């Protein structure tokens, strides 16, 4: 993926650029808002990672608002220390697609940008989601594996659906909280883990090939083992 | 030449005299007589107190107090008129 990173902190920029390049992406970095806006408007990128507080008179919000008003629909992820909910809302309302607060886990960043980049393709309405021999029917809300019906609670269904829509991608715990439960809150203990393990028991137990994997320090992924 | 000078002096005076306020002339002895004559025309039918009033008026006029005389005569005439 062609990624533009607009970040004025040199350390963070170095860290992010290196990590993303190692993950196979091409990263362009600028350190101020004006240059960022110019580059984003003149060259095609698959994704923009923007800090919000930038020098040069043009901040992250301005960049997104300008791009959106020009009809530029490139996905934008805000990477910023401004973490209050109001700020998140501001960022998303301005046209951003996701919002990650510093300090962040690199795995989280990676998982989120890959989810963003893949999104358009997944917008195609599907009635069935399939991973290996696991099949989820969205119309009848049923889960079957190798033809055998698996009983799941509604929330577990949504969890599974989300994992399958992002099959092969890392889905972090925070992402699950936001997308499956539609809340922004911080559970004191890892309740998400408990839900995933319950789901895993239903989906993987008794079958020889486990589909739901834990990705260390990152989150979860559903995938047919190669 | 003297003529012209005199005119120049007296012309403004004359003009001034012309601009002096018009005078009300209803306070003269002649007017007294006029009013007296009016009353006489109707005296016969007039009540006694009015005739007395008129007589007083004429008396005052004769004594030279034309103002008061005229006033009384007018009063008598007015009362008489109202009575009609």
């Amino acid at each position: 993926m062609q990624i533009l990173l607009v970040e004025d902190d040199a350390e963070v920029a170095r860290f992010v650029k290196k990590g993303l390049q190692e993950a196979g992406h091409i990263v362009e970095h600028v350190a101020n808002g004006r240059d960022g806006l110019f580059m984003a408007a003149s060259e095609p990128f698959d994704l923009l990672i923007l800090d919000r507080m930038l020098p040069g008179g043009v901040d992250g919000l301005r960049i997104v608002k300008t791009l959106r008003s020009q009809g530029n629909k490139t996905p934008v992820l805000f990477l910023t220390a401004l973490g209050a909910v109001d700020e998140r809302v501001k960022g998303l309302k301005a046209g951003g697609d996701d919002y990650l607060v510093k300090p962040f886990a690199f795995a989280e960043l990676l998982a989120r940008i890959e989810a963003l980049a893949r999104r358009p393709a997944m917008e195609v309405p599907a009635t069935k989601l399939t991973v290996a021999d696991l099949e989820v029917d969205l119309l009848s809300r049923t889960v079957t594996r190798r033809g055998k019906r698996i009983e799941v609670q509604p929330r577990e269904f949504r969890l599974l659906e989300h994992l399958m829509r992002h099959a092969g991608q890392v889905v972090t715990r925070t992402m699950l909280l936001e997308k499956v439960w539609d809340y922004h809150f911080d559970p004191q203990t890892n309740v998400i883990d408990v839900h995933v393990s319950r789901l895993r028991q239903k989906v993987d137990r008794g079958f020889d090939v486990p589909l739901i994997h834990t990705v260390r320090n990152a989150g979860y992924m559903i995938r047919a083992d190669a | 030449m003297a003529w012209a000078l005199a005119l120049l002096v007296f012309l403004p005076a004359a003009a001034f005299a012309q601009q002096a306020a018009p005078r009300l002339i209803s306070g003269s002895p002649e007017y007294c007589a006029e009013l007296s004559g009016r009353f006489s025309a109707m005296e016969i039918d007039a009540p006694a107190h009015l005739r007395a009033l008129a007589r007083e008026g004429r008396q005052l006029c004769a004594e030279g107090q034309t103002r008061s005389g005229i006033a009384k005569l007018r009063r008598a005439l007015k009362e008489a008129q109202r009575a009609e």
Partner: protein
Amino acid sequence: MAAPAENKDGWRDVGAYLKSAGFRFAALFAVLFLAAIMGFALMLWWGTAGTLSRQIDDAIRADTIGLQEAWRGGGAVAVKEAIGERLAVDIDDHAIYLLTDGAGNRLAGNLDRWPGAAEAPGSWSADTVRRDGIEVPARLHHVPLDQRHRLLVGRDATDRERLRTLLSEALLWSFAVAVAFALAGAAALRRALADRLRAAVATAGAIAAGDLTRRVPLSTQRDEFDQLGESMNAMLDRIDQLMIGIKGVSDSIAHDLRTPIARARMRLENALLTDRDTESLRAEMETTVADLDGISRVFQALLRIAEAEAGARRAAFAPFDLATVLTDAAEVYGALAEERGQQLETSWPEKLTMVGDRDMVLQAIANLLDNAVKFTSEGGTIRLSANVPARGKRQIIVCDEGPGLAAEDRARAGERFFRADPSRALPGSGLGLSLVKAVAALHGGELRLGDVQPGAARPGLEARLTLSSRA
């Protein structure tokens, strides 16, 4: 050269005085008062002198009509007769008539010549006439009759003029008195305003200078100024609270966050000093990353509490169904309870609408459930319920079977980072209840902690979270 500077200050002071609200109010009062007086005077004038003027004009008009009829009926002779009749009964001697021919000769009437002011045909004019050598004012009307004859009808306006003069003098004096009253009244008004405001202004000044304990003294009148003072005092109390909160946060940060930061540092330093193989070094680094994440979450939680306490989230209030939030919370923590073999019993009405911050309310319920699951032993029961205790209120109750909170600890439970002794060993930052309290306050409610079974060895904690359902 002190003098010029002083002058400048003096002018500035004058300027400030003129711009002051007290002065403006007082000036407004004075202007209104004087305007009222002038209105009164005008009405009076219109009613008296004005009436007399109108009466004179009406009388002249009536006469004019009568004499014009006479002219039409019998020409100059008839008019002469008519004039004579009128004069004969003119007791007041106020009427003025003059009939002249083309040459300007007097045919009838009681004026000796035509007045200059009444030259224009049809004109109404004012001029002076002489009566017994005295000049008196007159109102005159020039009535043209034909090419040669013209008629003058008028009235003696002495009475009217006398009344006008009398009235003008009286009104002028009254106006002077009114001005004096207006100025005095304005000064009194300004004084009264300044007096009432003095207390509030003095308090504000003292506070600005740094004495935050001052409050506006209130009088017994309970008027608008007292309401202002009350509002100011309420505001100052709130600022007090917030400042205490801020101090509390910085205290907590200073004291309790240093520990995990120190721990993380120690761990890294230790790894540096000791000769370790790559594998164990990696393990140490991973643990440190987790530590730093933990610190980050504590910061986040602190910020959320501060946000809630500052009431900043009120702007984001929206209507939502509390029953849905409870269901979701029960679902999330139900799985956790199941893990520990615990039962989660739930009970609430089908729909519980309210206005507030959905995320914050969920966070509060989540914190309470988290505690309940954590402190109840395996196999125990947790109860989550909600009801409407009174109109406009919503109540959420979480009961567990843990050690509960000692009465003396309950008061401190809302303090940030406070951990009652039994819980020090368990994971958690001690911010949970602090946030619940803040959320309660934000929603106009409160948090009450009590025992489920008072007197028992493990009485269990009952947390009652009351919220106002309206914004």
